[in-house]
């Protein structure tokens, strides 16, 4: 006699409910970008994408995000090293402060930067007479990106530091290595995976930044307009196709980064 297994109704039912719930919330909004964007044929999509202002906006987003990511990965590495290796008064307060920018609304972040660096800002008013203007430039976008993505790389790298055995570094020291050699040959290789995923996370978040960027950049087409700002501007002008083309690129880009993060985590950390 073959053993007949009971059919568990809960399984297909719960999977079905999950997928149906995600339809209007996630799948359909994403799908509509692609459906609209390509409804008039690929040639018009390509033309919209290749408009000089669109190309500029995408480039600006990539470049500003790159510098913000570079800074925040180095900073996150350094901060994680200091905060996991040394115990000092105020250490926990520092950890909370570093993590704070994620909790602050991005519009508030942009506003705060304006109040500091703007022509009448606390620091900006002393710089303005010397012809130094930080706000409404690409530099301002980088500053805003750094601020809102500040804790991301740190948050990924610090736990790896915390769990790393101290005896590896001690072993390296007894073998004769200097601190720099130990960091380079022993500590850093173990952080490879965390550094790459921290960087990808920071970059993806910076590319999509809108709230703070629109305040500090001035939103000047062809000068300080990033890709998300371009989408917003074109939508307001009623140029849905132009906005749509960039939206597709950004959506695909973030999809790519998260796929890499999801699948590459394992091979980045293989011994």
């Amino acid at each position: 006699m073959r053993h007949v297994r009971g059919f568990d109704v809960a399984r297909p039912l719960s999977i079905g409910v999950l997928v149906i719930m995600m339809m209007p919330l996630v799948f359909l909004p994403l799908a509509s970008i692609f459906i609209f964007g390509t409804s008039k044929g690929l040639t018009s999509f390509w033309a919209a994408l290749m408009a000089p202002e669109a190309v500029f906006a995408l480039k600006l987003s990539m470049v500003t995000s790159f510098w913000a990511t570079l800074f925040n990965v180095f900073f996150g590495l350094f901060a994680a090293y200091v905060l996991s290796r040394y115990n000092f008064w105020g250490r926990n307060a520092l950890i909370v402060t570093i993590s704070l920018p994620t909790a602050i609304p991005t519009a508030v972040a942009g506003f705060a930067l304006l109040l500091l660096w703007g022509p009448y800002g606390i620091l900006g008013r002393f710089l303005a007479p010397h012809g130094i203007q930080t706000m409404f430039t690409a530099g301002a976008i980088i500053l805003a990106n750094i601020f809102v993505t500040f804790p991301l790389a740190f948050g990924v790298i610090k736990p790896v530091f915390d769990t790393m055995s101290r005896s590896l570094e001690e072993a390296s020291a007894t073998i004769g290595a200097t601190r720099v050699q130990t960091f380079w040959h022993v500590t850093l290789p173990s952080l490879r995976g965390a550094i790459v995923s921290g960087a990808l996370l920071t970059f993806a978040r910076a590319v999509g930044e809108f709230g703070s960027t629109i305040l500090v950049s001035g939103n000047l087409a062809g000068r300080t307009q990033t890709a998300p700002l371009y989408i917003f501007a074109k939508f307001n002008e009623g140029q849905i196709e132009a906005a749509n083309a960039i939206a597709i690129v950004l959506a695909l880009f973030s999809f790519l980064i998260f796929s890499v993060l999801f699948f590459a985590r394992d091979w980045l950390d293989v011994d």
Partner: protein
Amino acid sequence: MQAKQAMVKEPSTNPDAKRGAPVVATSVVGISKRFGKTSVLENINFDVAEGEALVLLGASGSGKTTILRIIAGLEQPYTGKVMLHGKDVTELPARERGVGVIFQSYALFPKMTVEKNIGYGLRIRRRKRREIRETVNELLALVQLEEHRKKYPSQLSGGQQQRVAIARTLAYNPEVLLFDEPFGALDAQTRGHLRREIRALLRKVNVPAIFITHDQEEALELGDRIAVINLGHIEQIGTPFEVYTKPANEYVATFLGAANILAGVVKDRSVEVGSALVPLPEGYEKYHEGQKVKLVFRPEDVSLSKGEVTPGHACIAKGIVESTNFVGAYERVGVRIDLSDSGSCDTNETPFYLTTQTPESQTSKPIIATRPKPEATATRLTIGDRVAVGLSSFTVLADVAPRKRESESPRG
């Protein structure tokens, strides 16, 4: 070639060696250490000779790991100094001392292959590639890991990882090898096997070694000498034979192997235990009449006989068998001895305590005896048997209070 020297050391050219005096490779002089107000090490002194293996044996919290870390330069002593081949290295950082530490977890670099791990010390010393390759090859052969050279540490067994850790330190010709609980992470069978392997390896390379362990069996097997550490003090330092057969105090006696301990008083050049008189052997003249002492003897030094006590053995009492337990190579017998009777070993008399219902009274003591398998098979003992208890050897120790953790009083 540095590594070659390390692996096969020529007979030392030091003039001291020619005169027969052993060359001191490592000495620890008057080391003490405190964490806050707690003293964890108190005046630690010892030497390790060239090629010698010293075991620091102690319970957890005894301070043995701190001694090791101070020698390695990972911890600073409060007072005292560390000398390596006659050079005071107390002020030197770990990386300038040239000691080899084999960490308990081995601390192999996870992202480096076996050969990269072994060559690390030479790479950071910026040696020539060819030299590094040759040394790594020699060391791989020495620790028999040639076919694993391209593997990562996570792909190796515990024993193989340990051999990589040793080879990694031998590459830069260490002044001394320091092993921190080297077998703690391994199962019992591998442990015994690896102990003999490391012992043989150390003989071959002739590098002095200091082991840290809490396992007395390991200490006896690994050490040319053993230092028993208790609460930051060295209780005794000597060869395994000395420490086992002539323990300096009760702590050493009980920490290193099983020991029976009976309280007694010195009387007429004998030790009075209960009402039995055990004659004091040579060398115990220092004890004065009426002094409180402890009679210490190992289970294997006890002889049990149903009739007369074994000739040549000091009879201490008669007793009754309470338990027998066959544990492989020998039989463990629990005997309750009667100390109330005046030294008579006649087993035909009924022991005092059997008539009194107070087995825990001062005059009756449980002891443990072991008998080798042939003897256990020849004369069977069963529970309730009356036996005469003799001793083939024993130690007499002054009765002193056990050591307590020293710490400064809060108000100084």
